[in-house]
């Protein structure tokens, strides 16, 4: 870690008297937001304990009893569909002596039995059995009802994407998502059933970088020509040019920390289907195209197939990576796990198989793109060890940002508009008064 103790300028991370203005300004961020253990802890306490965080997709827990173990910030959780059909996010900790209750990545169970002393909890979180209960006195019997598993007080979903908030109060999920619902709608518009299936498995890629480096990079329209030159030189041309002046591709701060790179204007100008899908001709995808036309009619289907999927970051931890989905779990200031899966379309096996192979080509630890993004993130983290200059510059396009009813838009795809939106939100959330 950096020497935070000896440098008063980097003391901004301590809980008391945290002045967020000392680390985030409109056109720059201080290096300590990526390195300071205190700031990392503060992010866990604010972003991940007070706001909405993506936890799972409802297709992954489609049957009663289906569960997954995930994390919300640093809290391990069980995402489970209970006997009553409701999805809950239970904290993965036995209420007796704190043993991690559920140790499988996924499964189906009516109840969870702690292997330590046998306390058993229903999949709705209630405590249903305490072995040898006569050993407990009256005082215990009075508190027993309070010994259910802790759970996220709020769980809600949009378009099948399930979010949890560990805070009982705050904006609703709809308020939190704001304009980002349009990105989810855009993805669902590519499904003949209007639903998605996220059960194709998850690549789990360890990044030696701060979680914000990993997510910010996904909406950075500036780096591709450089970071990914080896792909465009040796494998295939970019789907459309990465030179900003040559394309109608915009970056957009959607508000509330959500942001995107939007190719739709360029694709509509080309009026060509599947540019976003390796320019596959529709003849190669006959079942999928037929199902789309059946569901939406030829015109609407054509438009959806031209416009393609979103390239949108949903604050704080979900990235709709076109036909892939990525979410991140922060581990430490310099360590992040990125989970990558695909949006499969129910009933479209051949199309989905193609999507799988495309995702493997681009994404994850061996992917032609993301392996290099991971390397760049690691080097960014390494570069931050140099203490001077203290700030990272996010000024690109500041003077050419235009606000309209879709958000703050910049017609230059290489503008750092998404990052500025991300850090404006970050400052609001991380800079808030904490309970201490």
């Amino acid at each position, binding site marked *: 870690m950096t020497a935070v103790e000896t440098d008063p300028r980097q003391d901004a991370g301590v809980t008391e008297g945290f002045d967020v203005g000392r680390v985030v300004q409109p056109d720059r961020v201080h290096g300590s937001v990526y390195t300071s253990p205190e700031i990392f802890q503060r992010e866990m306490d604010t972003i991940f304990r007070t706001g909405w965080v993506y936890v799972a997709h409802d297709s992954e827990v489609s049957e009663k009893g289906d569960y997954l173990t995930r994390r919300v910030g640093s809290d391990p959780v069980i995402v489970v569909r209970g006997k009553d059909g409701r999805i809950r996010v239970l904290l993965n900790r036995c209420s007796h002596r704190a043993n991690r209750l559920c140790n499988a990545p996924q499964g189906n169970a009516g109840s969870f039995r702690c292997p330590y002393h046998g306390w058993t909890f229903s999949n709705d979180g209630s405590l249903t059995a305490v072995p040898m209960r006569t050993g407990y006195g009256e005082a215990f019997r009075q508190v027993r009802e309070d010994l259910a598993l802790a759970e996220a007080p709020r769980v809600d979903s949009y378009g099948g994407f399930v979010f949890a908030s560990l805070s009982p109060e705050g904006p609703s999920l709809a308020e939190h998502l704001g304009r980002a619902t349009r990105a989810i709608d855009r993805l669902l518009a590519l499904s003949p059933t209007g639903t998605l299936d996220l059960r*194709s498995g*998850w690549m789990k890629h360890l990044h030696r970088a701060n979680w914000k480096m990993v997510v910010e990079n996904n909406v950075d329209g500036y780096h591709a020509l450089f970071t990914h030159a080896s792909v465009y030189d040796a494998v295939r041309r970019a789907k459309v040019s990465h030179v900003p002046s040559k394309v109608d591709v915009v970056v957009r701060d959607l508000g509330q920390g959500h942001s995107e790179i939007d190719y739709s204007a360029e694709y509509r100008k080309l009026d060509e289907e599947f540019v976003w899908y390796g320019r596959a001709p529709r003849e190669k995808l006959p079942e999928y195209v037929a199902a789309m036309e059946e569901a939406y009619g030829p015109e609407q289907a054509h438009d959806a197939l031209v416009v393609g999927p979103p390239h949108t970051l949903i604050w704080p931890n979900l990235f709709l990576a076109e036909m892939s989905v990525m979410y991140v779990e922060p581990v430490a200031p310099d360590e992040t796990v990125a989970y990558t899966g695909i949006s499969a379309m129910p009933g479209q096996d051949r199309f989905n198989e193609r999507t799988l192979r495309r995702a493997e080509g681009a994404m994850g630890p061996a992917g032609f793109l993301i392996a290099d993004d991971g390397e760049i993130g690691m080097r960014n983290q390494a570069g931050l060890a140099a203490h001077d200059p203290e700030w990272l510059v996010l000024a690109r396009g500041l003077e050419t940002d235009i606000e309209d009813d879709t958000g703050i838009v910049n017609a230059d795809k290489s503008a750092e508009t998404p990052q500025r939106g991300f850090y404006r939100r970050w400052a609001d959330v991380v800079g808030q008064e904490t309970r201490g």
Partner: protein
Amino acid sequence: MTTTDHTGQDTQQPAAPQPLPPVDPQIAAFLYLEARLADEGRYSEWEQLWAEDALYWVPFHPDDDPRRTLSYINDNRRRIHSRVAQLNTGNRHAQTPPSVMRRLLSNMELLAQEGDTVSVGSNFALFEYRNQQRIWAGRVLHTVRQGPGGYSLVSKIVHLTNAQGPVETLAFLI
């Protein structure tokens, strides 16, 4: 000759496990060559080992059905070519500079033989140095075909011990 079937000898009790036959030294030598070319980042030479109907697969789990499940790597011949072409640019950042590697291929067993094609199962341990040393290990299944021009690699399936992840960047030839 099929050598994988050990069942059905005794209906009362399963037969005791039997050792598998050893691997022809020439095939073992071909697999050592594959390992050495991968270790030394001799990408184009490594690519020449592959047959046209190639499969280079690193799944999450041995039972995964790749038609329905994502993998870390699932390359056909064309994608192997692309992977090598990207590495050959010298601008594949995750391998610039390339990892220094040495791998051990051991416990080699003949799993099946059909005509000119043999399947070999081995354990491997790979020591990779790039900024720091990492150890990769697992089971590797090779399918090798003998043709008029010598041996070619039809498939290489790598079951990583840490496939459940998280997995560090894997931009070298595993």
